[in-house]
């Protein structure tokens, strides 16, 4: 036991070195400093790599980011008052291949079962569309927003929300927060990464300094400054071109990012305060070419790849932000306690593979089985959308409305249900227990819910009005 204390004590003197000044680097430095307190030294090198791949984090978060962002100091008042962040009930998909209508991939709490039978069986039996039963989808489509109340009798209480954001805003505010914390910030650039027996022995900086550390976090995005040196191979699955345009926008748009498909690929429009951000993904005719894929092992030696240095997914869903959060939570839980990191490394890499593959199957479900334009982007995306885990999910849903669940998935059953419906996937059979409720009874229940949703949505203010009022309210509160 004394040996253990000595081990932990010795190791804790070696700093955690965070390399890279993009979103991943800033989040990592602030998150670890906040959560580890003075039990570990944090050295932050914000100029250790480029931040060009930050664009692949996308511009939306899932509801699960709320608490995580708060632990970083990015609470809601800070975001709404201090950045261009706005609210997001989800992402609206428009003109997606093989779908008959547009849908909002909204954030929503589980819909109540009827007579103990999950809602999807009643939907299949009644041939009813799901979207009109989802308050967050209806409100987003109508351009309205309000915070979901606690009272479960109000249909809006079932809505959940994330944020529409600009990664550069987050970086700016986190940079300010980092300055107030016990973080050793070194603005020098890395000139060389020295290794010894598969681990990083030190970083050499252009200031002439040398940095030694216990653990190094590679947050240098697609540069992979440290992982490359350690020989972690990044398997490229396919390449895309990404182009971003930002336009001033005096009136805030809806609480929903929109994704529109075209022959060349797709374009996402994010509605921020004061501006609109358009991100186009295509096969390469326009924009910056970027590789999608992942490293085989994100934790090599004493170095962990965080965020885009470890994986690169299209920013088509909140998956990239969900994965970044998962990376940081995972590394925090497994902060090494000694120089021998074999156990931590093995567990981190196992969880990483589970998380990334689960996130990928959700995104791939948008491409699976579709009849897409005869164009390179779609052909490549579809050719990469194969996995047994995804096939099982789709086959079981189409067979009998069953939502197959794997361990600790980042997207929950509601996300999958909404996605399957959005993609026009209908169960061929439904649970015979659905007959416990008569068709009339269920029709009435659905129609009652639809009316209640319409009523509440009609009373909700437009997103821009809500945000303006919220800012006035917060200002008043702060001024006493």
């Amino acid at each position, binding site marked *: *036991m004394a040996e*253990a204390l000595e081990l932990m004590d010795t190791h804790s003197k070696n700093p955690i070195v965070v390399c890279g000044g993009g979103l991943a680097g800033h989040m990592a430095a602030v998150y670890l400093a906040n959560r580890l307190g003075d039990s570990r030294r944090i050295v932050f090198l914000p100029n250790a790599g480029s931040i060009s791949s930050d664009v692949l984090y996308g511009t939306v978060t899932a509801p699960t980011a709320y608490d995580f962002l708060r632990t970083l100091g990015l609470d809601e008042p800070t975001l709404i008052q201090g950045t261009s962040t706005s609210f997001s009930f989800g992402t609206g998909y428009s003109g997606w291949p093989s779908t008959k209508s547009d849908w909002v991939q909204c954030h929503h709490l589980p819909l109540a079962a009827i007579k103990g039978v999950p809602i999807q069986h009643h939907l299949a039996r009644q041939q009813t569309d799901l979207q009109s039963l989802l308050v967050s989808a209806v409100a987003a489509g109508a351009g309205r927003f309000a915070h979901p109340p606690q009272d479960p009798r109000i249909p809006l209480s079932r809505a959940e929300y994330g944020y529409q954001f600009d990664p550069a805003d987050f970086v700016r505010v986190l940079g300010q927060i980092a300055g107030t914390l016990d973080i050793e910030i070194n603005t020098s650039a890395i000139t060389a990464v020295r290794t010894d027996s598969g681990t990083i022995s030190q970083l050499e900086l252009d200031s002439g300094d040398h940095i030694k550390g216990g653990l190094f976090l590679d947050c240098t995005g697609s540069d992979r400054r440290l992982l490359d040196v350690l020989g972690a191979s990044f398997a490229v699955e396919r390449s895309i071109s990404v182009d971003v345009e930002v336009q001033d926008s005096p009136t805030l748009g809806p609480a929903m990012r929109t994704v529109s498909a075209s022959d060349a690929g797709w374009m996402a429009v994010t509605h921020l305060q004061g501006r609109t951000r358009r991100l186009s993904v295509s096969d390469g005719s326009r924009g910056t070419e970027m590789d999608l894929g992942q490293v085989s092992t994100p934790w090599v030696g004493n170095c962990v790849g965080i965020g885009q240095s470890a994986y690169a997914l299209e920013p088509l869903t909140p998956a990239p932000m969900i994965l970044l959060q998962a990376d940081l939570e995972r590394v925090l839980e497994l*902060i090494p306690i000694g120089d021998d990191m074999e*156990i931590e490394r*093995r567990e981190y890499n196992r969880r990483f593979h589970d998380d990334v593959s689960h996130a990928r199957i959700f995104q791939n479900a948008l491409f699976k089985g579709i009849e897409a334009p005869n164009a390179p982007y779609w052909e490549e995306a579809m050719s990469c959308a194969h996995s047994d885990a995804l096939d099982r999910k789709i086959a079981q849903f189409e067979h009998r409305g069953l939502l197959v669940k*794997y361990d600790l998935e980042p997207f929950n059953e509601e996300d999958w249900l909404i996605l399957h419906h959005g993609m026009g996937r209908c169960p061929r059979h439904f649970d*015979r*227990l659905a*007959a416990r409720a008569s068709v009339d009874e269920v029709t009435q229940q659905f129609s009652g819910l639809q009316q209640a949703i319409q009523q509440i949505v009609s009373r909700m203010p437009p997103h821009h009005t809500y945000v303006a009022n919220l800012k006035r309210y917060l200002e008043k509160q702060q001024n006493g």
Partner: protein
Amino acid sequence: MTAAALSNKYKGLGVEITLIESEQIGTVGVGEATLPHIRFFNETLGIGERDFMKETAATFKLGIEFCDWGRLGDSYIHPFGDYGLPLHGMEFHQLWLRLKQQGLVSRLDDYSYPIVAAEAGRFQIPSGDVNAIGSNFGYAYQFDSSLYAKFLRGYSERNGVRRIEGKVTQTSLDPETGNIESLTLERGEMIEAELFVDCSGFRGVLIEQALETGYDEWSDWLPCNRAVAVPCEARGKLLPYTRATARSAGWQWRIPLQHRTGNGYVYWNEFISDDEAAHQLMSTLEGPALAEPKQLYFKTGRRKKFWNKNVVSIGLSGGFLEPLESTSIHLIQEGITSLIELFPVEGVHPLDVEEYNDRMALNFERVRDFLLLHYVATQRDDSEMWRYFRDMTLPDSLQEKLDAWTRRGYVLRYEVGVFLPPSWVAVMLGQNLMPIAYDPRADRLPLDELDTELQGIKSATNDAVTRTPDQSVFLERYGAATSVAPLMAS
């Protein structure tokens, strides 16, 4: 259980259910202890707790006490619930480990309400105040499984199940599909059905004898292959927990019911004879035996397909894992739940079969690892059996869990499966597997502050237990005391 659950679900929906059972074939009578999930099963069926407890002579169960597992003379309780209270966003055991390494805490059990209450023989229903000590635990039951079967039989019949007394003597297969078409009973009656559920126990009358499905044997990992069981008169305080005592060639259970105590010895016949096992069991009973000891033979493992053709095997016909953690009835429940979710819509569909088999296989494998943990997280090497486990190569899934735990008290998590991290913590710490270090986040808090907080929890736990009545008093007050007479001692 299957007939009752199906009859509850499909009553009035045109599903005809026939239950074939024979009074001549007794139930195995192990698996009288349960996990908290059984409460959900009963609730779904609309079975009132008091009625059920009176009818089955049930007692409350707060956990399982393991004696002599880590070392001879050791004991600990695996409780149904978390330790301590959530503090500072950390797992409680990590904070405890930090203080333990400073020599500042007593055993982890002292911070668990269900353990302290169980040791004192006390029980009450969990408090509704989620922040209070005495709220964050679950409970299960210990009951007379033959009385429970009778109780559920009555329930099933009232729900329209046709019960036929008789033994299956012949099965007829469809030559094209290989499905079972019909069963013929001893008296010549023929029963046809679209779906058959095989609850015939170890014999697997339909799944194995008729369909020859095959069996994956796990004897290399869990080699105990026999048991001898006997009830005896109850003695002493009515305890709200099951006891499992490690022996030189297996382990012995003690399950206290209201009207008697169930006992059994699970053993590996390589290292002890049947006679010697029976003798050891009989010589350690707390009261006079109430029946002749019953001998059981089994092979640990599972059917290669739980669902094959149009036969679903539930219970011992699907697989057997020794009842060390009271999982027998739970695995029945898992089988029933999955069957209801995947109940054939228009005939048996391969996708339903595949899904069912995948789910049940995962459930069995995860329980297997947890059971094996008890045998390998030990310092015992005082007999051939214990030396066998000491030298065993473990499944990777279990080895990784042990490595992460011993290094830093980290528990590998999963979502699908019955045993959550607190259960793993209970067994690993209970069997003296002390991590060499702890999560560094526990170092964030000043030591004296943490010490005060944990002392507060320990003292609040003791206070809450002091206010908790004895189980026998609670049963009476609650209206769950049984009138079932004890068996007569022979």
